């Protein structure tokens, strides 16, 4: 299931006529935090949004995004759940265009010991609600 985050752009995010590339990654972080915050009691997995560590971002900027008052839509889903890490996919889009496609590897992290830790069962359960594995690549002809 994809989670949809309506992201308000800010005029101050513009540089040279378009939204600065670094700002997109802050937008993705907002969207990711929203996937894990505000769950029902017993499903407090906000640590995945707040304290987990990013191991890798792969970001493709497909169309320049220019400030407008209407929010853009960030669709987020999980494509992989590992032992300590998972992969989150994002699309920044509206009905007309896909502006950005990103894939981020996130590692659950124990701040006390400063090391990765296994995902907790309640965290896995929440991640599974967003799971949408990438389709297998089509066999080459």
């Amino acid at each position: 299931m994809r989670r949809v985050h309506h992201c308000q752009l800010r005029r101050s995010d513009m540089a040279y006529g378009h939204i600065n590339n670094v700002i997109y990654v802050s937008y993705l972080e907002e969207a990711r935090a929203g996937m894990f915050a505000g769950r029902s009691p017993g499903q407090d997995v906000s640590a995945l949004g707040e304290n987990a560590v990013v191991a890798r971002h792969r970001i493709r900027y497909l169309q320049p995004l220019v400030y407008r008052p209407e929010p853009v839509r960030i669709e987020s889903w999980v494509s992989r759940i590992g032992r300590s890490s998972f992969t989150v996919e994002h699309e920044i889009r509206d009905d007309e265009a896909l502006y950005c496609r990103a894939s981020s590897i996130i590692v659950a992290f124990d701040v006390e010991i400063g090391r990765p830790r296994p995902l907790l069962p309640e965290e896995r359960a929440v991640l599974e609600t967003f799971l949408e594995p990438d389709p297998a690549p089509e066999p080459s002809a």
Partner: protein
Amino acid sequence: MDEAGHIHNVVYLRYLEETRIDVFSVNPPKPGAAALAFAVVAEMDIEYLRPLAYRPEPVRVETWVARIGTSSFGLSHEVHDGDTLHARAQSTMVAFDAGTSRARPLRSEERAVLEELTDDRVGRVA
């Protein structure tokens, strides 16, 4: 910084951006090629290898040109602290005509600057 006192992942991208501006337009100035600093980012692939704790001393960002195309070029970056590699990134940059909002071919003086940076890593502090 995040709660654990580490430099936030988004900030690394800001360091890379500052480095690009520094390398292409400031230090030293590159007549005819300063616009490379404002090429647009088409792709960014960054791996965070070790957390970086805040400290007053700068880190070293090594940058070199990995590929030169018609309108685009590839950059490689490494964020180092002494002997420790903290992050590694590859980006695809596209020369952009702000007037027409379209990609444009790299100019010959820009290609010359990029070629110089193909062999040499440029160390910059961020």
